[in-house]
């Protein structure tokens, strides 16, 4: 059974037929009202999101979100497709980017031309324009086979990326006690830098994604080191309290986030390379080559980090400082050097995570903040401050998010992970791998 069908089936269960009929009626009514008002001010942009089902019949795709951004990148309106796939927005006169929020597409459904999303439309008062967003062939998605396995593969992919980002968060917490809320912005920074190098180019040269990624990782690592040097180390020297440090990290999170918004605009963007790829149909599930590469990269990086922590002197020192800072210091470990390295490596990994995430989904100014919350969920699940716990916790969170779409609407999938965070704290606050908290 295809993902689309499954989704519609669930939608059907959720909403009674009554509500459906009522909703349709309402929609008809609203549609009439909307076109009237369109005469007065602004224009209407609309469309019909459809897809072929197994029988080749064209059926509407409900519950997909469209957003309109004005030229400055601010979101001016958004809407959701109705049961029959129709949608419409009234916006003031002007030129807009209409973005289909791919996250809200049902599992297994994708755009046929992802590079034509967002689409640009110009509207004058009283006009009405249709915009087409062709979807991938329904036959293709139904050939994808077992949805659960597909979701597990997607979940693994997401979990690996979260894990890569979360290592830094966990190690920084372990070595300095700081819950670094600005860690998400390292992720965004990495993705945005990759976009700049890959799409916009520097001095007119657009770098291919692979060298661009290498450069991004280097830049992010140095930026992390610099951040530690200029902000965090002086704060530690002065003996600032952890609450003050926490508030400072939030301040930086907000500041960086809006600076990125200011420069990068609110539009979601995609990397130039490897954007459109034919997916391999592997029977049980489907996978784009880039996703396979991405997973291989993540796994090797994670295995590399784990073995470095386990076997190298520096890695052992990191774990020692995490475990007991004073004890480590008294055995002659240069704690500040360890912390420096943790910041550099953690930020570099976060930057890499950002690029990989940008590769599978899109890049926007608050992606890092979104991922930060998933990292929190992963790290808490694994046990705050434990490096390996962060890995396993994050992967479980990734799986959980994707699998949860079987029961909750796709656009709310992250809620499940955050709920899980709360439930873990309720039943096992030290996480799966953490020790019982010290008291006294």
């Amino acid at each position: 059974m295809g993902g689309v069908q499954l989704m519609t089936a669930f939608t059907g269960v959720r909403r009674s037929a009554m509500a459906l009929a009522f909703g349709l009626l309402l929609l008809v009514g609203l549609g009439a009202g909307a076109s009237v008002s369109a005469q007065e001010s602004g224009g209407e942009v609309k469309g019909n999101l459809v897809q072929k089902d197994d029988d080749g019949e064209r059926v509407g795709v409900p519950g997909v979100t469209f957003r309109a951004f004005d030229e400055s990148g601010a979101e001016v309106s958004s809407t959701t497709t109705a049961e029959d796939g129709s949608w419409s927005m009234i916006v003031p006169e002007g030129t807009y980017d209409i973005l289909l929020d791919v996250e809200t597409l049902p599992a297994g459904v994708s755009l046929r031309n992802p590079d034509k999303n967002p689409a640009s439309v110009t509207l004058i008062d009283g006009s009405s324009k249709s915009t087409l967003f062709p979807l991938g062939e329904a036959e293709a998605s139904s050939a994808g086979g077992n949805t659960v396995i597909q979701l597990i593969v997607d979940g693994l992919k997401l979990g690996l990326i979260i894990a890569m980002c979360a290592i830094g968060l966990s190690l920084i917490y372990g070595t300095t006690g700081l819950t670094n809320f600005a860690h998400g912005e390292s992720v965004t920074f990495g993705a945005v830098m990759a976009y700049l190098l890959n799409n916009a180019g520097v001095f007119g040269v657009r770098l291919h994604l692979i060298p661009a990624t290498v450069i991004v990782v280097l830049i992010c690592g140095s930026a992390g080191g610099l951040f530690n040097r200029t902000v965090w180390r002086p704060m530690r020297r002065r003996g600032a309290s952890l609450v003050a440090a926490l508030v400072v990290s939030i301040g930086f999170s907000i500041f960086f986030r809006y600076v990125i918004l200011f420069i990068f605009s609110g539009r979601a963007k995609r990397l130039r390379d490897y954007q459109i790829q034919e997916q391999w149909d592997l029977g049980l599930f489907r996978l784009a080559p880039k996703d396979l590469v991405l997973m291989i990269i993540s796994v090797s990086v994670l295995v590399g980090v784990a073995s470095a922590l386990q076997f190298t002197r520096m890695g052992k020192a990191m774990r020692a400082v995490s475990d007991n800072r004073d004890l480590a210091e008294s055995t002659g470990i240069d704690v500040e050097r360890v912390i420096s390295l943790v910041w550099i490596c953690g930020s570099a990994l976060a930057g890499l995570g950002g690029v990989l995430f940008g590769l599978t989904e899109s890049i926007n100014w608050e992606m890092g903040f979104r991922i930060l919350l998933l990292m929190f969920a992963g790290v808490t699940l694994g046990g705050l401050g434990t490096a390996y716990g962060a890995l396993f916790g994050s992967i479980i969170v990734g799986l959980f998010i994707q699998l949860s779409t079987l029961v909750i609407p796709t656009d709310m999938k992250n809620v499940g992970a955050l709920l899980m965070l709360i439930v873990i704290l309720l039943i096992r606050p030290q996480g799966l791998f953490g020790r019982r908290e010290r008291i006294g």
Partner: protein
Amino acid sequence: MTAEPSTAQELFDGVPYEPGAAKNDPILVADNVRRAFGGLVAVDVEHLEVQRGAITALIGPNGAGKTTFFNLLTNFDEPDTGDRLFEGNDLSGVSAYKVANLGMVRTFQLTKSLSKMTVIDNMRLGGTEQAGESFFRALMPFLWRRQEAEITERADALLERFKLSHMRNEFAGTLSGGQRKLLEMARALMVRPNMVMLDEPMAGVNPALKQSLLDHVKGLRDEGMTVLFVEHDMDMVQEISDWVVVMAEGKIIAEGPPESIASNQAVVDAYLGSHHGSALELEAD
């Protein structure tokens, strides 16, 4: 200091001088209490009874597990296994604040005087069953004014006894280390407990004051209160305690009246032994 014989010795008539000895009228019983931190077994007490109305000293080398044992007895920490009975109440799963309300109040080795509150507010906090501690009644001062005055009066009397009256309106943060110990002890008494557990109450208190404190502790006992305290100064232990319990490496190794302890071979070994092992480093704390 002249060792004046304690007066509650007859409470221990017939109690054998051995670890885990049954008391004539125990107020607190610990059975098979064990707590490990990772691989380190900090406390492993097979059996201990604390006599009601007596002053019991808990001694032992640094790192013996005394503080941890205090935490376990007052439910600030949960044992891996074991039962604790206070006045017949099973303490398993009881919150620490409830233990205090049952009448067992403790002080901390590292003082927890509330430095951003005044000395008198620290004291008032100890008052129990305060009407004004309910949010809604807090909004109606006439409901708690009188009780507040009573509490303040009691607090002032205690401050007088502990020679802290002149600091009454200062922030507790301005007190010296010894004064904080005193404040914490006085504050614990505000709860009107049946049993006080003092973790190194005399550390840092100046010698002149120590003597009056000792008299005060004896006074508490004579009023019927039970005292369990941790102390390193053997002179002091000899002077005021009716009974001494010795801990080493998490276990109770000896019990008896103060005179019997100094000559106890196990105790001598524990103290000497500790100076060869790793406990030597911990001595500094």
